């Protein structure tokens, strides 16, 4: 463990300034799959970067599937894909290209995660720890905005570690532990499913996202970060209400799913109340 941590830190120390480049990355195979791209963060290079992407993908694929609602829990719908060589600019300017977003959206990419890792000196002589600014681009929301539809800010930015938490020296643990990723995936997944008219699953994920985002907003975040999260939470609730109304508007099919039948009794004004 100590050796691995030293390797990470060595990789960080040797890292040159990140060079932004959007190269192609293949989404998860299988027509029904949705994908989250894990792009290269700035601040890591060489073997350390390669290890980081592989470990992060493994960690997320192993431990995160239960955090949003899948069609079949044994075969999760969302897969994380590491994208070596893909390093978007930290300010997200690459994603102002609508053709790029259209391509991602049409290939069912839900989110792209990237950021910047850095080594910070510990306060009062404490051991140095890692910090990260992570960007989360919610592709369906950006697509909707490009279509001039109502949508919240698609690029969410968060800093780690949060105030008052212990210093972290493993970048994978720093990024993969928080529930933030789950909230963003659930929001993007739910909204995409709503657009694909998979209403029951969309509603479940949007409500899950709203609950997770409410928890995130209570944490110590900057005013700007909190405003972005609250906007996303409101949007998730509105989208969940839209799913409820859509279910209630369509005729009941023979052998209808139990979840959909339950949604027929749900009030659209409180779409996520039990």
């Amino acid at each position: 463990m100590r050796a691995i941590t030293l390797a990470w830190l060595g990789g960080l120390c040797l890292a040159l300034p990140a060079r932004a480049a959007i190269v192609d990355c293949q989404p998860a195979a299988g027509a029904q799959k949705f994908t989250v791209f894990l792009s290269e963060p700035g601040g890591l290079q060489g073997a350390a970067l390669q290890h980081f992407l592989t470990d992060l993908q493994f960690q997320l694929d192993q431990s995160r599937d239960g955090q949003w609602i899948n069609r079949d829990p044994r075969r999760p719908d969302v897969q994380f894909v590491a994208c070596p060589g893909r390093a978007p600019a930290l300010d997200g300017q690459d994603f102002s290209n609508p053709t790029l977003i259209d391509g991602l959206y049409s290939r069912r990419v839900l989110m792209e995660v990237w950021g910047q890792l850095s080594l910070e000196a510990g306060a009062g002589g404490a051991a140095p720890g890692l910090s990260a600014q992570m960007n989360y681009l919610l592709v369906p929301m950006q697509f909707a905005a490009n279509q001039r539809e109502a949508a919240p800010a698609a690029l969410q930015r968060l800093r780690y570690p949060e105030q008052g938490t212990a210093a972290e020296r493993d970048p994978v643990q720093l990024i993969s532990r928080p529930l933030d990723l789950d909230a963003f995936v659930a929001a993007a997944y739910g909204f995409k499913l709503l657009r694909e008219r998979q209403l029951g699953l969309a509603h479940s994920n949007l409500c899950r996202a709203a609950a997770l985002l409410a928890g995130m907003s209570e944490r110590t975040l900057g005013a700007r970060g909190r405003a972005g999260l609250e906007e996303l939470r409101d949007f998730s609730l509105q989208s969940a209400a839209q799913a409820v109304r859509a279910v209630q508007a369509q005729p009941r099919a023979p052998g209808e799913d139990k979840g959909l039948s339950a949604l027929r009794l749900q009030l659209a004004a409180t779409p996520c109340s039990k």
Partner: protein
Amino acid sequence: MGSVEERLARLEGLVIAAGASPPAPAPRPWPARFAAWMGAELPKLLAAAVLLVLGFALKDSVDLAIRQRQLDLSYSKEMQGLLLQLSGGGALPQLQSAAVVLASYGVAALPALMSELRYPGLRGDAALEGLNVLALREPEAVCTALPRVLALRGQYDWLAQQRVVLLLGQHGCTQARAALQRYRALVAEAAQGRPAAFEALVREPPAGPQEVYPRLLKSVDAALAMLDG
């Protein structure tokens, strides 16, 4: 009516006038004179002239065809490097730049760009940019070739077709109207729950069809509106 003498005198005058020398015939035009001068040799001369003109024209068209073939060959060699760049997985600006340079070869680049359009991701995005540039330079050729993308079976995915639909509308390809209407009919049928014909057309059936078919219909309608506008 005068006396006999007077009548005789008038007749005598007329006889004298009729006996005068006739006027000289008008000169014949020069071709007739030339033909008369050439006599039996004229057909041989004409045949020789026709052969000369034909030979000259044929030589020119053969020369042109040979030069065109040489140009195509040299274009193919030069374009090969650009195609390798496109398939090499570079960053988006580099891929787009390669596609735009490819488009500068004109009609010769059209098959290559249409082939690249089949690939999903940045490669297809770059090919679209190339086709867009080519359509500015050679609208007739692009407008004639691209509608085939909407009719070829199992070659393109729905996203490539959607992009072609919009490109045809944006560049005012009026000759594509019939192809667009046929494509629209297939999509509309799929949207109404009969996707077999559309699924046979695309490389693989779309994921999330309940979203894809309305999106495609919207794009085709937008393209047709652009053609009508």
